[in-house]
């Protein structure tokens, strides 16, 4: 009897331990964010772990993920799932042989049909799929709707309307746009990207990306000169160049919400902060695409940007399990949109084919409109290119860092674009260009 009992106990134990032991562990390092981490854990990690019993997904949140990850990967370690801030990082990792190709998994699970084409293309390096998008973003123009109605201003769609509204706003004693770069110096590239696409047109930007046009061409120098004029001479952003440099995220949101400025140029990651800022205000906010600043006009284009990417570490022992995690994400629009809604669509907006019905009830109408219109416009081909998704590392830093030199008046726009073209030539020669889907 006693012996039987012992056998019984050991059997139970071995079953239990076998089960836990047999689970494959997949590790994922993600950038830490106090507000988002619990949601990630609950709605993605726990949901995935509950959905099956072969794989245990473990997510670790790290501050300053970039530098930590890079050094860990270099020494052949790091997590199974590698998160990077954009394709330029993927390129470096992929070149160095630190990532596994996901071409096989993509074919097996049919990811090409699940992801929006431009975002899928941005992950194809040397003909193979290496990185999946975790979130996409675009640049928009927010405005204080109540304020616009009170003053009878209309949302600009052309250059002359744009400059006209701007001068009216200034005459009313407000700043045209609330924005600032303290805490994130690369903020300048948001503006450069908007002006390049809007003034020169996405077709020309595309040609320059693939090398059929030079950045020294008048379309581009004109765009940069216009931005310089609006920034430095006219002080559109927060009143002056100096204030634009000095304001941080909390500052410019407060400025926009308290009628310190009538508009704000920013990426779609702003939705949550803007809604929160206007919560106590009687004003209403809305958004519009950035106006087309070139002659002749056209439909406004949405700039394409990948916020974060996900790949599989070359040294990962469990690539199959990691791929299952990805497929779980791409196949569950509900999970994705639920999480994205919790983050106010500033994070985890995986570029899938959403329709209006997929979106949660409580999502604000402004955001709903954005998701639907973005899908429509980009589907028609009205899209442009952000610098942080399509520019290689060196020119990608030059475009914002040296923009300051132009604004300071230390260098002419022509010289700046000449330097920029030189960096592109060098990057092209060294094979550092990033994937751009055919237009």
């Amino acid at each position, binding site marked *: 009897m006693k012996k039987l009992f012992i056998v019984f106990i050991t059997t139970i134990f071995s079953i239990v331990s076998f089960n836990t032991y047999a689970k494959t562990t997949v590790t994922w390092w993600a950038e830490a964010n*106090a507000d988002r981490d619990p949601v990630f854990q609950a709605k993605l990690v726990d949901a995935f772990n509950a959905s099956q019993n072969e794989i245990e997904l473990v997510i670790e949140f*790290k*501050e*300053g993920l970039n*530098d*930590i990850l890079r*050094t*860990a990967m*270099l*020494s052949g*370690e790091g997590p199974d799932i590698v998160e990077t801030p954009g394709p330029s990082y993927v390129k470096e990792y992929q070149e160095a042989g630190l990532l596994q190709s996901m071409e096989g998994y993509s074919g097996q699970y049919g990811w090409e049909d699940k992801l929006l084409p431009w975002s899928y293309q941005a992950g194809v390096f040397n003909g193979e799929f290496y990185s999946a998008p975790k979130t996409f973003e675009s640049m928009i123009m927010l405005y204080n709707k109540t304020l616009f109605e009170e003053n009878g201003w209309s949302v600009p769609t052309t250059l002359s309307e744009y400059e006209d509204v701007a001068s009216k706003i200034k005459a009313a004693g407000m700043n045209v746009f609330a924005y600032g770069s303290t*805490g994130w110096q690369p903020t300048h590239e948001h503006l450069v990207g908007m002006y390049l696409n809007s003034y020169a047109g996405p077709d020309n930007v595309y040609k320059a990306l693939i090398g059929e046009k030079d950045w020294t061409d008048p379309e581009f120098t004109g765009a940069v000169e216009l931005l310089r004029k609006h920034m430095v001479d006219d002080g559109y952003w927060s009143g002056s160049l100096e204030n634009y440099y000095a304001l*941080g*995220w*909390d*500052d410019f949101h*407060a400025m926009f919400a308290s009628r310190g400025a009538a508009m704000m140029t920013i990426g779609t990651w702003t939705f949550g902060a803007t809604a929160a800022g206007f919560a106590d205000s009687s004003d209403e906010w809305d958004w519009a695409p950035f106006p087309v600043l070139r002659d002749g006009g056209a439909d406004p284009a949405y700039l394409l940007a990948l916020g974060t990417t996900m790949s599989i570490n070359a040294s990962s022992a469990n690539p199959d399990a990691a791929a299952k995690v990805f497929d779980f994400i791409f196949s569950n629009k509900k999970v994705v949109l639920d999480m994205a809604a919790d983050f106010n669509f500033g994070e985890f907006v995986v570029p899938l084919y959403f329709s209006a019905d997929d979106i949660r009830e409580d999502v604000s109408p402004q955001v709903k409109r954005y998701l639907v219109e973005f899908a429509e416009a980009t589907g028609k081909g009205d899209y442009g290119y952000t610098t942080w998704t399509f520019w290689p590392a060196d020119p990608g830093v030059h475009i914002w860092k040296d923009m300051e030199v132009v604004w300071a008046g230390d260098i002419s726009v022509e010289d700046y674009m000449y330097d920029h073209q030189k960096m592109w030539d060098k990057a092209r020669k060294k094979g550092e260009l990033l994937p751009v889907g055919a237009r």
Partner: protein
Amino acid sequence: MIVAKYRKRELVSNYTILTILALTCILPIMLLFFNSIKPQEEFGINPFGFPITIRLANFVDAWIMGEYAQIFLNSSKLVIGTLILNLTVSGLAGFSLAKLYPRGSNAFLVYLLVGVSIPAQMFILPLFLMWKELGLMNTHLGLIIIYAGLNAPFATFLIRSYMIQLPDELFDAAKIDGANTLQLFYRIALPISWPVFLTTGLVVGLAVWNEFLFALTFVHDDSKKPIATILFAFQSRFENNWGLVNASAVMMMAPIVILFMFFQRRFIAGLTSGASKG
């Protein structure tokens, strides 16, 4: 009589200049303190004055959100560990350089001086790879070794220059009694040089407590992070929640300030005896 009058005028001008300079030093810090006990709503109307309503709960909030109980422990561990390692190795070296007159000691001093002026950004990447190989990543021991190394030149210099002024006769007498070199160090040099060890300890401890670049890079687990990295994270996470950010800054500087006030006289004595014989 005339001299006395002249003296008085001189004193008044002395005090005026000194007070102005002292205020420049202390007012910004007072501001930090005032703002740490202000409620958030008050910043709009009273950004620079003494708080109208005092809200000590800022400290409680920061304490809980930053998990300061653990964080203080981590930082203390780093400081104490670094001090033990750093003072031991630097003490031995300082003694040798001051009293044992090794050949080629000048070359070693030059080496240390060059070591001080190498920017951390230059060697942080290879160091990271080395630490990974040695399994020292994400451990307090790893950081302690780094801090001990970074502060070694300064500590060695300071201790050396203090010990140089000790009379040689002291050691000669002990040598005749048959003491070996190590005994000379801990029986004679150590007991009479404790002021310089105190000073060095304070300076090195201060540097470790305030350091954030290496801490940010070499420790990833939240439960192991020292205080400076937490304040750094607070500053970006709660950008304009000034009450909270200022309260955590005050909590970070409080232990240091108390320690320095306590040891002020001793500290200065050790530092200057070192500097004067640089």
